[in-house]
């Protein structure tokens, strides 16, 4: 069963060429010319990854991203015009997992998609349940829940990030390490990906996100999780 990718892009030529390229890589492609159509398509037939251009007529990419995130934990890649603007951070805040900058190379896009589709495979000697505070992580099942059994919803990327931190409790993980393990980036990946995802995670697992007790920032070093 090939993975299904939703491409939300208003430029028909780009959309068609992306379909050709992605199908060449073995994916099944669903197209949408607007944010509204994208949401509709996804509702009718959920995809495994969504690719959303930020500059869309009508409902813009941010809004589309937020709506999609509201109904699903699907990995989202935003397509931005510039990598060094607030667009990237705003897109990530809207729920995106990663981004590519136009004009992108197909190979690069393929690598981003593959990284997001990777499944969490815990090492052999690792316990099947990771816990901290009153939270439990079950990597096998992809489930995060409180000790009382209520499930905490998080995206696949947030979950993988939390697994990395929780399996190295009390140890500092640098942004570079996290970018490599969670997103498949090298040393020069964008640290903002980590920072925004950590912020989002804190709102879900910390009793007071402004004064984190579990996911701590180690200045100039990275992040670490304390139980």
């Amino acid at each position, binding site marked *: 069963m090939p993975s299904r990718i939703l491409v939300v892009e208003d*430029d028909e*030529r*780009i959309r*068609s*060429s*992306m379909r*050709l*390229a992605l199908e*060449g890589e073995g994916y099944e492609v669903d197209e949408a010319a607007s944010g509204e159509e994208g949401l509709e398509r996804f509702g009718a037939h959920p995809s495994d990854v969504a690719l959303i251009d930020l500059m869309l007529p009508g409902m813009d990419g941010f809004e589309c991203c937020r709506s999609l995130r509201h109904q699903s934990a699907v990995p989202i890649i935003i397509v931005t*015009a*510039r*990598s*060094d*603007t*607030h667009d990237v951070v705003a897109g990530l805040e809207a729920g995106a997992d990663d981004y590519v900058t*136009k*004009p*992108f*190379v*197909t*190979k690069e896009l393929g690598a981003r998609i593959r990284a997001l589709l990777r499944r969490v495979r815990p090492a052999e000697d690792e316990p099947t349940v990771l816990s901290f505070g009153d939270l439990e992580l079950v990597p096998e099942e992809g489930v995060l829940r409180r000790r009382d059994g209520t499930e905490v919803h998080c995206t696949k990327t947030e979950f993988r990030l939390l697994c990395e931190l929780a399996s190295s409790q009390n140890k*500092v993980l640098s*942004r570079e390490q996290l970018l490599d393990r969670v997103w498949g980036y*090298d*040393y*020069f990946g*964008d*640290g*903002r990906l980590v920072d925004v995802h950590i912020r989002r995670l804190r709102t879900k697992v910390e009793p007071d996100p402004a*004064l*984190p007790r579990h996911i*701590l*920032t*180690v*200045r*100039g*070093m990275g992040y*670490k999780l*304390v139980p």
Partner: protein
Amino acid sequence: MFALGALVLSVTMGAISYFTTRHILVSGQENAEIHSASKNATFVQQEIRDGYHTVTVLTAADYGNTRSSSLLYRRGNWYERQFSVPPSALPKSLRTMVHDGTPASLTYTRNGKPVIAVGIPIPAVHADYYEVFALTALSKTLGVLALALVGAGVATTVLGAALGRWASGRSLRPLTGVSRAAVAIASGELDTRLIAGRGDPDLAALTSSFNEMVDQLQERIEHETRFASDVSHELRSPLTTLAASLAVLEAHSADLTDASRRALELLSGDLRRFQRLVADLLEISRSDAGTADVSFEEVDPAELVRQAVAAAQRSLALETPAPRVEVDPALGGTRLLVDKRRFERVIANLLENAAHYGGGATVVRVGPAPHTNGAGHHVRVSVDDAGPGLPATERGRVFERFYRGHAANMRGAGTGTGLGLALVAEHVRLHGGKVWAEEADGGGARFTIELPGEQAEVDEEHADEVRAT
């Protein structure tokens, strides 16, 4: 300037009032003396007619008068009473005039004291009567006046200077603002404007026309940078389509004929170059427009350089072997605050430049700048190549956009974007550092960047100390 004005003014005013007063006083005194002398002359004439002896006459004339001395010239002889004023003390011009029958008076200085000599001819008795008055009182008065005027002048000058300083500071303050704003604008802060002050309408006009000028300037500059940015922006959509479509063709290149495959290779090679050119143009136009977002991170310079060299070698797929990375132990715990993406581009562009024009980079060195000691504040990264080196005349110019020097005909010349080193300079400038080209030890070219460093904030031993943020 103001003090000088006050000085000139007070000297002029002082001089005018002194000389006017002096003239009035002196001519008043003169008139009085002439009047008294003519009275005496009439008296003398009367007495001589009456047959009194000349000296007796003079004594009588001088009676009760200590201010003046009388002289009489009659029939070739001089008669005087007090012997205080010899006839030789009378100016010759006065004597000649009086002798010719014209009454005259003359003010002059005698023995350092001002005197008035009045001469009156008495033709009836063939005599000339002279009277010399000392002007001591008058000169005392004038002395006091001069002193007062000098005092007033000094006071005016000092006050004027003080007032001038205060007033010029006050009235020049807006001009200082203008000059400061102009400097800021020249250094690229195009948002700088003058704040319209209250009061002076001349200044308000200056402020508004200055601001208008800067508005127009800014508009033109922004228009030009926006144009470069818009063009690059518009090129991106077709480029995305091209790149994606070419990727499909590349995936099926095995099905193509040799000629088609070669054509495809040329296409994708130049498409990559085109993409980079557009990306570089966008980056440089953003930098020009001052809209580049820089996100600084604190990093270990040695690790950063090692990673950047490895990443560049990977992404550029250079044919030349990877250079050695040498880290100077003197670097110590110095850290760098860098935008990692930009730094990676700097290293990649330098390595690419070395590969195209210098037969590949041989060694990349990381160390402290020599003028900072120990774990200093500046870090130098240099890239040496094995090429023929750069002529001294081109060393500064290679950082210009689209500059094509003597190497224009070399093998790698057609493959770059022409913006590589210009972007290096731009990125280094954003980091507050500098970049230059020189001759490497082996005769090749050496490009060196110097960036301001940071003292390590977290040392290794306490690396596990946690500060929650």
